[in-house]
């Protein structure tokens, strides 16, 4: 739920409840006040009655006064002599209808006889008045309330816009793709603070990331010289005639390990270089030619494992970096050969905008989320575990779309240029 939706709901509840309470109180007070006024008028009528009695006539109210006076002779004045007020309904002979009204009952001595005098005044007009007053007050209030809610809605949306922009920019922030966090300009202090904090944080993250990359690069470079020493020493040992054949296996393992370490280092360096955009010369690259070249290059490997190679290559020339394209095709090839079984198949499809590598291999789909992670590989693999992440990184940098699928027992890697 949005913050201001929640806020509006609370506001609406409180507002409606408040309006009801205030309305109730207001109505009651007003009614009470008007009743008092009617009562006061009726007292005046009694005075009129007494004055008329002094002139020996029964007082009759005027028609416009909208009230009736009743005289009822009684035997005695009942003690105590109180005046009673109250609400009642009565038949209004002037309007021929039943109306609500106020009555006043009092005992008077008129012409020397006791009478029960009842004055009944219609409340109709007063009630109409109350209705009018309430409407005049409450309708504008309701309208105001509605307008407030509406303004709230619009204003809140507007006021929170910088916040939404900040969130958007955080989402776009990406170290590997060099998407820096774009600061959002806003006069609101809270958002400014948030923005500044994120700018600070992202700068720190950027610096740390750059340092890590620099460290990786330097560490890899530093390792090349000792590796060169190991290689050279191994070559020298091989020249000596003093070893017996038992050492051959050890030497072979040492050569293999050194070669793997070298390859690992080179792969790390390549990754850092791709990350740093240091490989960026663009030119027309004939992808078909590149693939054919690689087929020739890998033919012994394909042949030795009795892999069946099916190709369907159309002409395809793209504007890209030759070195990266070479690595891309190369890694795709290494991957389909390495993770295949004896007598399996490799299928390569190329058209202007896509290249697809399909291979037989393990009978289960690989984890598409993880296969492009660095150093993710199955235990049997003798690779560096960097081939696919290099592939992925090249695709990210070159704006290619890289996709993995498993269908009909085939692992399918698709790169869309």
């Amino acid at each position: 739920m949005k913050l201001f939706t929640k806020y509006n709901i609370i506001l609406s509840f409180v507002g409606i409840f408040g309006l009801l309470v205030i309305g109730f109180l207001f109505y009651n007070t007003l009614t009470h006040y008007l009743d008092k006024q009617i009562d006061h008028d009726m007292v005046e009528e009694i005075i009129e009655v007494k004055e008329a009695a002094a002139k020996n006539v029964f007082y009759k109210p005027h028609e416009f006064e909208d009230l009736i006076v009743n005289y009822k002779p009684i035997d005695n004045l009942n003690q105590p002599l109180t005046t009673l007020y109250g609400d009642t309904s009565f038949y209004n002979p002037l309007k021929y209808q039943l109306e609500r009204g106020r009555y006043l009952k009092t005992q008077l001595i008129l012409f020397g006889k006791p009478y029960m005098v009842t004055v009944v005044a219609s409340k109709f007009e007063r009630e109409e008045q109350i209705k009018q007053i309430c409407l005049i007050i409450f309708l504008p209030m309701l309208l105001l309330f509605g307008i407030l809610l509406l303004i709230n809605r619009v204003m809140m949306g507007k006021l929170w816009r910088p916040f939404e922009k900040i969130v958007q920019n955080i989402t776009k922030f990406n170290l590997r793709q060099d998407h820096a966090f774009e600061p959002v300009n806003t006069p609101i202090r809270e958002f400014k603070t948030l923005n500044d904090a994120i700018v600070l944080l992202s700068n720190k993250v950027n610096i740390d990331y750059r340092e890590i990359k620099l460290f990786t690069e330097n560490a890899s470079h530093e390792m090349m010289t000792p590796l060169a020493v190991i290689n050279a020493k191994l070559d020298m040992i091989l020249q000596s005639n003093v070893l017996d054949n038992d050492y051959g296996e050890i030497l072979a393992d040492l050569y293999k390990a050194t070669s793997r370490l070298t390859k690992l280092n080179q792969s790390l360096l390549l990754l850092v270089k791709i990350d740093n955009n240091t490989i960026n010369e663009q030119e027309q690259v004939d992808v078909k030619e590149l693939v054919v070249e690689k087929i020739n290059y890998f033919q012994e490997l394909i042949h030795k494992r009795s892999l069946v190679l099916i190709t369907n290559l159309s002409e395809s020339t793209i504007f890209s970096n030759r070195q990266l394209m070479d690595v891309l095709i190369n890694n795709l090839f290494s991957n389909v050969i390495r993770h295949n079984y004896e007598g399996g198949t490799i299928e390569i499809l190329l058209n202007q905008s896509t290249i697809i590598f399909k291979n037989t291999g393990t009978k289960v789909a690989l984890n598409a989320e993880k296969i492009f992670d660095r150093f993710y590989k199955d235990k049997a693999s003798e690779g560096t575990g960097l081939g696919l992440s290099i592939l992925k990184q090249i695709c990210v940098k070159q704006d290619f779309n890289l996709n993995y699928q498993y269908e009909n027992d085939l692992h399918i890697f698709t790169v869309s240029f």
Partner: protein
Amino acid sequence: MKIFIVEDELSLQNSMERYLTSERNICVCASTYAEAYEKLSIYEYDCVLLDLNLPDGEGLQLLKHLKKLNKGAGIIITSARNALDQKIEGLSLGADDYLTKPFHLSELNARILALVRRKNMSGAMQVTFNELMIDIDSKEVFVHGKIIYFTRKEFELLLYFIVNKGKAISKAAAAERIWGDDADMADSFDFIYTHIKNIRKKLMDAGSNDYFHSVYGVGYRFAAT
């Protein structure tokens, strides 16, 4: 041939010197910029192996100095940095080749010989070994004057062994020669065995002697005995 080795890593320098000396070269070494600068100014060399990262200076400066002296020595840069722009800078400053560390000594030797061949255009573009004759230009192999057809990789491999004749070459070095950086492919070492077997067969079918000798199962030596 007189070779000047500029390398600050002494144990590497030592191995390079020993390997190249055993190939009947005369080697002179330097491990600092100052020492290299001095020796380069005074003596003449056929080939200079130049490390770019020296403790007291940039190898590229030495390269500029060397070019100014105009002594006509072939120059191979040996560097731990495999950056394309550095390669281009080095080559444009007048280096003839660029070898990235780590490298195999047999590879270094092959590069030196190839460089010297290129330098002396008048020099023989043919390598002869007993009844074997290789024409490097046309990439043809003759046994007793009869041409034998090899695939490109087989030819490369045979040439590599012949220029390093008498030396044991590991399968790793041979694989790297043919497949470059991808030599780590799981069973690339086994391919060297297959390739060598094929080369041997073709040569012997044509009446050549068997010159390939297995060394501890790790590599091969191409030699008359």
